[in-house]
């Protein structure tokens, strides 16, 4: 595979181009060309497609598009190009499994195949910010207490000593360090000190805070995961490459991350399914990832759960896992707030699409209101139960379930219901559920999911 040094050299030797020209003269026309050439067409009737030939065509289109367009480096205003051979060679060398964690919590995340009945990797949590250290600790401990959770994504804590930790400030460095220390301590309190944290430095926005918080004194290890994200669309800036340079040098797991935007330069479903696959190829080749975070997002609604976005995430996972054995976790941004029926049906539709298509799960983020403290652990238990149930289904069996879920929430996405905060449902001191209505509601939802055909079992 092309060396990382060769990749970064191309950021200073590739063709010069303005970002406007990159998008208007290269990116958008070439994307339209491959959509037409490969006759890719979104079908709203099957949000979870079952056509393997279509999945393979998407992969082929993605390789062709990536080899024609490359990526854009805004720091040097250059296009970073790769040949088809270089891309395919990287695919052949892609890691098909990644090992995370320590001790009893050391586990292997694998690339799964569509319709495979193995259990997916259960990744819990999210980067939603918290308002106080007490709530931060309670939330992370609550998540770590979910025995089936294989790894955590921890909330961000953007205040320190009662003050805002601004982007790129020394306060941010201190807040990032504090967050990491508290997260590891919360895992220890849950009896799982080796539980891997795949997004431990959500408080850090830039490399300085991220590197500072990665110091082993603060509790992170190379067996945790470190996210490196490209900006939409196909932007690889020096900050991201700095992170790759550092984390590859310490032998850490890198999670290449992407958020293709529905409604942006990729256009609609057809362009976004190709882009989603391309970002994974970029993740292997440029970001040297050991796993990938997929997070396609609707620009207007700020969610991942619309009908076309379900089609995108399902088909992109199928295209990848049939052709490139690269483990993916898939991040649902959901309209409904924590504990709402809207949230539950959205996450059920999303995870069912992902898991039957070969992906691994990341529990749902309530995203529209960006409410603080809205990671509520019992919701994440339900996310895991749904993902486990979905692993027992084939795509063909799952599609009618997804259509029924869509009926429940599709019309709500323009104005989704707000949900609970952690402290509305839990005792912050001892982490027990205090809101019996919330707990009862979870049982009702389980029953409804069963009636829809999801073979869900309540966790022990």
């Amino acid at each position: 595979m092309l060396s990382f040094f060769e990749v970064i050299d191309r950021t200073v030797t590739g063709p010069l181009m303005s970002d406007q020209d990159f998008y208007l003269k290269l990116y958008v026309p070439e994307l339209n060309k491959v959509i037409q050439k490969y006759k890719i067409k979104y079908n709203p009737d099957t949000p979870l497609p079952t056509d393997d030939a279509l999945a393979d065509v998407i992969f082929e289109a993605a390789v062709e598009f990536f080899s024609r367009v490359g990526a854009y480096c805004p720091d040097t205003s250059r296009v970073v190009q790769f040949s088809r051979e270089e891309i395919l060679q990287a695919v052949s060398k892609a890691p098909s499994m990644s090992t995370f964690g320590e001790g009893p919590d050391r586990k292997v995340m694998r690339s799964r195949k569509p319709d495979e009945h193995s259990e997916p990797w259960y990744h819990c949590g999210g980067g939603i910010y918290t308002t106080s250290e007490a709530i931060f600790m309670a939330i992370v401990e609550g998540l770590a207490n979910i025995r089936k959770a294989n790894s955590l994504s921890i909330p961000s804590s953007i205040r320190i000593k009662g003050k805002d930790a601004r982007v790129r400030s020394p306060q941010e460095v201190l807040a990032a360090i504090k967050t990491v220390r508290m997260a590891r301590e919360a895992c220890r309190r849950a009896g799982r000190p080796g539980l891997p944290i795949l997004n431990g430095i959500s408080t850090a926005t830039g490399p300085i805070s991220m590197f500072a918080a990665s110091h082993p004194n603060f509790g992170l290890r190379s067996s945790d995961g470190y996210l490196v994200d490209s900006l939409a669309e196909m932007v690889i800036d020096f900050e991201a490459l700095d992170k790759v340079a550092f984390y590859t040098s310490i032998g850490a797991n890198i999670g290449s991350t992407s958020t293709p935007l529905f409604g942006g330069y990729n256009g609609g479903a057809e362009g976004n399914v190709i882009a989603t696959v391309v970002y994974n190829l970029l993740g292997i080749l440029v970001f040297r990832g050991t796993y990938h975070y997929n997070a396609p997002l609707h620009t207007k609604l700020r969610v991942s759960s619309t009908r076309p976005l379900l089609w995108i995430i399902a088909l992109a996972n199928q295209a990848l896992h049939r052709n490139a054995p690269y483990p993916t976790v898939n991040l649902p941004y959901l309209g409904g707030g924590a504990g709402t029926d809207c949230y539950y049906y959205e996450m059920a539709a999303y995870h069912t699409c992902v898991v039957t298509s070969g992906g691994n799960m990341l529990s749902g983020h309530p995203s529209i209101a960006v409410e603080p403290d809205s990671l509520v652990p019992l919701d994440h238990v339900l996310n895991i139960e749904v993902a486990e149930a979905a692993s027992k289904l084939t795509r063909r069996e799952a599609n009618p379930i997804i259509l029924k879920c869509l009926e429940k929430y599709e019309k709500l996405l323009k104005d989704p219901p707000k949900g609970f905060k952690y402290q509305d449902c839990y005792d912050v001191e001892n982490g027990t559920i205090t809101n019996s209505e919330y707990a009862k509601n979870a049982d009702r939802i389980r029953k409804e999911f069963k009636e829809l055909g999801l073979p869900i079992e309540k966790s022990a």
Partner: protein
Amino acid sequence: MGEEQILEKLKEAIISFDEKLAEMTARDAVEGNIDPLKAVEDGLVKGLTVIGEKYENDEIFLPELMMAANTFQKAMFVLEPKIAEMGKERSKKGVIVIGTVKGDIHKIGKDIVILLMKTAGYEVHDLGEDVDLFTFIDTAKKVEADAIGLSALLTSTLSGQKDVIDALTQQGIREKYVVIIGGGATTPEWAETIGADLYAENAQVAVRKLTEMLEKRK
């Protein structure tokens, strides 16, 4: 070709992103002595209205918005000199200075707002990303803006929006500008906390709310 046909063709040119047709039909309008302002408002802008509706319904996306804006511009190159020659000016909905606040380098959401603002008839000054707070204020003064648009995607960059409002207040010019905020990290509550005039959850809402507020202020 009659006036009605020319206006319809201008509208059609925008809807089909046909730059050549837009330019040619604009020439027909000039040669046919059609009021160029009428050609803009009853031809091109009607096309843009259809484009806006299609965008709202997820029938078209950012690339098509850009193509429609380019098509509009092609026709305007022909019509603008004629409008100036007549001593007239196309009425603007307003002037807005817009950018992503300090520390934040996200751009696509902001770019969509800019395109919709432009096609709705605003004069837009795009300051780009990672913009220093005084650049917002100095540019707003320089171009005599009606509004300042502040985008922030990251929670830790939200304070950049507050800084601009605080600096406007400190300089005693807060009331001079409508401050509108948006971006993934923003909420109506945050807008209220920092004293922004408007919060927009997406680009269309930004255009609608700003237009309503500027109308009220007239």
